[in-house]
């Protein structure tokens, strides 16, 4: 899967409380969650972001709570991919379970806000202005799960076979 999108830069330790503050968690509606995405850090983010834009972050992206509302809020804005130096473990599983792609690469200091980058999510090749970077490969087990259509589709198939 090849993507081309504008970069939104974030720093280290972007926690789930800033991705989607808890006061909005009474809703499970992706549209509502998307409207408040990143609000504490950048109140106009949800309004300005465009479908296809890419988030680039630093270390430990998605740390904090297990709320799946976080990847849902990001996906609801049409963001298909986050590239970060590293990801918190619960967020990592949640994102893949929700169909949001993640790539591990340390590029936050090499890109400008608003810059357009090209990414091949399958091979992990990220084309920057000056060079190409290859992201850490997605673990083979996760690739299998993605190929099955995600955990929920895998479960659905399993239940259908059973019944």
């Amino acid at each position, binding site marked *: 899967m090849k993507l081309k999108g504008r970069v939104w830069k974030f720093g280290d330790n972007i926690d789930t*409380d800033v991705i989607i503050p808890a006061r909005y*968690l009474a809703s499970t509606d992706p549209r509502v969650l998307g409207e408040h995405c990143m609000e504490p850090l950048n109140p106009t983010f949800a309004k300005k972001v465009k479908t296809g834009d890419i988030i680039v972050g630093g270390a430990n992206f998605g740390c904090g709570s297990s709320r799946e509302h976080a990847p849902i809020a990001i996906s609801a804005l049409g963001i298909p991919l986050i590239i970060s130096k590293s990801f918190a473990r619960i967020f990592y599983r949640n994102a893949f379970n929700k169909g949001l792609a993640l790539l591990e690469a340390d590029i936050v200091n090499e890109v400008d806000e608003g810059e357009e980058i090209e990414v091949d999510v399958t091979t992990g090749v990220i084309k920057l202005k000056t060079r190409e970077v290859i992201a850490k490969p997605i673990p083979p087990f996760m690739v299998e799960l993605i190929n099955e259509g995600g955990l929920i589709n895998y479960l659905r198939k399993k239940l259908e076979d059973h019944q």
Partner: protein
Amino acid sequence: MGMTITEKILASHAGKDVVEAGEIIDARLDLTLANDITAPLSLEEFDKVGAKKVFDSEKVVFVLDHFTPNKDIPSAENCKLIREFSRKYGITHVYDGGACGIEHALLPEEGLVVPGDVVIGADSHTCTYGALGAFSTGVGSTDLTYGMVTGRNWFKVPESIKFHCYGKWQRWVTGKDLVLYVIGMIGVDGALYASMEYTGEAISALSMDSRFAIANMAIEAGAKNGIFKVDEKTLAYVKDRVQRPYTVFESDDDAKYREIFEIDAGKIGLKVACPSLPSNVKDVEELKGIHVDQVVIGSCTNGRLEDLAMAAEILRGKKVASDTRCIVIPATPKIYLEAMRRGYLETFVEARCIVSPPTCGPCLGGHMGILAKGEKAIATTNRNFVGRMGHPESEVYLAGPAVAAASAVKGSISHPLEVA
């Protein structure tokens, strides 16, 4: 090569003799947990996959603790949805209304988790049950659905980091000070994907309440789980609570650790994590005089009896400072009752504290104590991220119960000796 306690528990649930760090396993679950925020998403997925039943109606637990007593109509609708689901599928363990307590204080207290268990919960602080010598970890709602339906899930066996603690604890110091010290030392991603294992004479000397607080905050260092050796205190704790048989696992002497830290308990003073990361840890002495608008004593980290006892000892016969609000939240109905019997609640009310029903409430900025722009709070909770307890320009300091209670009396961050 020997195995760690975490590896042994995971191996036993995957039907294997041996597992190694990094290995992907499919493991049997003993319990799944969700709350009023995370269950609704899980139940949506449950319907989507066309599931007809849960794997075991006695092993699926719902605790309606986050936005309860319900703060608004959407929260009330979420709880209603969970109640209807629970009736339809015959779920035995639903904690609601006056039976509700903060999930991670409640489940051990109710005897629902036993040593050697594998537990997943759609709440990141599910790692708390490691204090019982169980493997427990937080997951998202989709993983929880998979667990609820199949009674299994996949795990990457984590590497282990050992924290060996020796020496004697100082007065007022609790498990919270140790875990803040550790997070300050290794950072908020210092144990990313790993298991944090606590051992040593100083750990044996800690109460179960302190051990729960330490395991609870493993996630704040990015860990998959926190875990403790089962000892006499653990066995005494589970004795009158637990109905199920259980297996005690123990790390081998030659088990493999990514890193081993030696910690002198006697050198750990009262710690405070400053805004806006749990790793931004300082000694309380360095922060004296910072005004606090609000104090919160409660949460799944520090809302247990030991915490309330310590706070009551400091607040007895004193008053909360006039321009400070202090909210005390006993974590479960049983803790609430015992605090009442021992006179702690009377002490709190006489000191002009607000005594809240058990709820996660202000910890995550949900309700029951939200901060305005520019306000500062000191709390015995677990996270101090930007806007965690309210306005994005409010700030949270994290501490143990003694520092929180002393700060309530002084109206500014204080050492308990200052108000003695």
